[in-house]
């Protein structure tokens, strides 16, 4: 059986922001599904991690929430990216890319020198 990784706290915020950026306003379930799907079901998302993360982003002003109605007429709380959130996403994404790049280079060079 394939082992599923838990999402770490730091990266989850980035994933949420990116998801909202691509998908537009979305409810919690949608965000969770989207993240799981995007990861090719390699990740499982714990709601006990997702909700506090959403709350934190909201408190920091990167996302906003609003009660709305879904396609099949169900009441749901929708989250959407704010302007500050978009900027934060750019910043975080650049930061993340740089980090992974450095790490990748580091790991490959370490392999080469062996």
């Amino acid at each position: 059986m394939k082992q599923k990784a838990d999402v770490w706290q730091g990266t989850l915020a980035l994933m949420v922001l990116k998801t909202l950026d691509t998908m537009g306003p979305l409810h919690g379930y949608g965000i969770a599904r989207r993240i799981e799907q995007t990861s090719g079901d390699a990740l499982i998302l714990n709601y006990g991690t997702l909700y506090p993360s959403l709350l934190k982003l909201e408190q920091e002003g990167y996302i906003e929430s609003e009660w709305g109605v879904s396609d099949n007429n169900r009441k749901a709380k929708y989250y959407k990216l704010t302007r500050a959130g978009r900027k934060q996403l750019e910043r975080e994404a650049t930061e993340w890319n740089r980090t992974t790049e450095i790490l990748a280079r580091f790991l490959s060079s370490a392999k080469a020198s062996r």
Partner: protein
Amino acid sequence: MRSFVAWLKRFGNLFNKTRNERDLADEIESNLQFQIEDNLRAGMSSADARRAALLKFGSIDGAKEAVRERRGFPLLEMFARDIAYAIRILRRDRAWTAVAVASLALAIGANTALFSVLNEALLVKLPVPRPDELVALRWAGQNDVAGTLYEYGYIAPDSKIPGKGGATFPHAVFERLRDEVRETADLFGFSNGGTRNVIVRGNGDMASCQLVSGNFYRALGISAELGRLFSPDDDTASADPVIAISHEYWQRRFGSDPSIVGTPVTINGSAFVVAGIVPTGFGDLGLLRASSALYIEGRPPDVWIPLAMEPRIVPQNQSNLGAGTWWLHVMGRVKPQTKIEQLQARLEPVFVNEAKEDWARRLKSLGKEPERSAGTPNLRVVPGSRGVYDAPPSEPAALTTLGSVFGILLMIVCVNLANLMLSRAAKRQREIAVRASIGASRKRLLAQLLTESVVLSAAGGAAGFLVAYWGRASYPVWLGYKPGLQPIDMNWTVIGFAAAITTLTGIIFGIVPAMRVSRVDSATAMRDSAGQINPSRSRLGRVLVVAQIALSLVLVSGAGLFLRTLTNLQRVDLGFNPNNILLFSIDTGVYQGNRQKRSELYDETMRRVTKIPGVRSIAFSNLPILSGSSGSESFSIEGSSEIRSATSVTVDERFFQTMEIPVRLGRAFTAEDDRGSVPVVIINESFAKEFFPNTNPIGKRLKQGGPLIEIIGVVGDIKHSSLRAPAPPTFYFPATQSPITVRIFEARTTVDPMTILPVIWDTVHQIDSKIPLVAVSTQMETIAGRLREERMFALSSSLFGVLALTISMIGLFGLMSYAVAQRTKEIGIRMSLGAQRRDILRSVLSEAMILVAVGIVFGIMVAQASTRWIADRLYGLTPHDPLTMILAAVLTIILAALAAYLPAPPRLARGSARRAAIRMKLQFLCASSDDEHWRDFRHVAPSDAGLADFRLR
């Protein structure tokens, strides 16, 4: 910035909790529905779809809790919840809470009170700028160069120099020392000027006076509130006579009238002018605290007079400015870089030399040759920030004794509360187990239980602070000062102390039970609904009860010792009859300088008062007996050059008869012992024993500078200045031969002396309306004054003893009712096995009495070790007095037996009610014949015979 905004939002969330909660629940539900719909679409049945969705979601409560933690400030909210819960719990059990809070309030209140008194007594410095720059001069060692010596307070003995010490100096010595160190220190002198008749704008009344050197105010750093204060120029014999008056006197007597400055006043017949007002808050320098019936106590002086003016306010030829009279206190303000040691080294040789010369001048004025061998004391320079005198050893000792009593009381209260908490926590074992099983961590339980005890002690602390605040007027009384001296301030130090002691108490009595209770095994605790005896819990409870009883016994035996000391002192043989004696005097200061007139006034007063019905006889002396003041004089015995000294009293010929002091040998004075006849003296038995051992002193003669004085009689010893000390060697001089300026009358009455007082008042007023009646008290009052401290100790220690006993008994009662309640089942079993109520009672009581016995043994041990500290305060018994110890132990045992017995009977009734039900259980147990159970029953069975009997069946 963002995190600050986030913080603000979190803070905002504290206030709309309900909405947030509903919002969260709705969101979770809607997300669940999305999942269910997806599952249905995937072809699951509706039940399966919901189940799978819930599984997928995970713990809903866990998610909610995670959100909550992010939402507000969980720690803060938890604390607030704990407090609210604690208050709810405490309110549910009101009687329990009331007992706890009341005992805490008393202990904390008493300790706060004590702290404010300590603060006042030990930390307060003279109310002048930079008091730490002040030094005081004193001397220590053999002093043979003092002709007349005045002391007004206590000087602690010097550890290095044997002999007595003093803090007064002759005027010439002071001036010489002052001039010697002029560049490094500003030495100033001052002395008590007595109470004088002050006439302003035609009105006369009495005012307390202090004589001060011209640099007094300059050195102390005090400037006038109005007008001007003295300068050294005012302190010369030829200067215009001026006085300064205190703010209080200005207010009291002149209604703060500013025109008083420059007004002429008459003091004892001499003219002065008011120069200025001394600001408030500046008291005397430790002078007037010394108690004497003739001084106005506890107030700053009303009037200050320059030293050089002293001859104008005292009778002719009575000035202390001359040689040989040690009467002046010397203090000084030193320059910042000067060390006390340097100052002392500089002054010492000058002092020794000048003191000798002063004595030589005195002898010369009496027409005698200077002595070579006269011993001169050493000079000591000591820090003067707290005034001239040391606190009498009784004062700090009083405070430490009181402090340890209060400390013990607080300990008992803590122990008692720990016990109460424990017994209540045991009742809550199930509640705690439930909380533990639904996920409360040990840390959370501990926090909750500690919060409860802190809330409790906060309530106790608040109540205690009120107790201390309302009771503060009485602190000086506890310390043996006269009431109304000054209320003690409650400053921030005191409030901080109260807060600290409260929190500490809360934690101390909370921590042990909390640790104990929070260590629950939830499974065990929930299984047995009746609640088992938790052996470790009851062991701790027992230890606490033993500790309480031990500590109470310490306090009760202390109280017993003080009470017996008081009764011993009250019963002490005074050597005279103190009942129905009225002491009074008249102030003749208005006829200053007219000795003839004053003498006539005294004689007239005496003649008329004798005629008042109810007055049996009247006499006079220069000092009242047992008032705290005494004088001494030096002498030598004919045929010896050795200078001795003894307490001296001047009395009239009716004194011994009026005071009912027996004449042992020779005769009392008669009217014939006057100026024309041979000088005579009467000595007391101690004098005879000390100076004429194994010889008949009658007819022996004493030298005192003048003609030889013949001893004509020996009278019985009387307690003179202290009730504890044996009578000092005393000689009595006849007033007819050594005239005195102030007469204290002793009137022996046949009725209550105070009923005679108004008549005496009228009589004196009729003689001369310008002379006031002063210093009125009964002899019994002066004796009571001597016993003030003892009475205070007996009273407060009894109070605390009773309090401690009460609290301990509450503790024992609580433990016993809890223990008996725990044993209801066992008691039922025993009764069904045929045990009588009597047997059960005996077993319950014997358990309690073992604790009491152990407590008493420990208590006696602690008491034996600690009562040594109070040995100095006792009289007529040792600190290990067996009778007191036995009485204290018996009292404790009786009360403890009562406290242990009271909870038993109602429980026994319940025990017998359960008898029937238990029979059934027993039969089952017998059938199972489980060895372990039988072992248990062997303990509870009334006798082996009964058990065997039961088994046979």
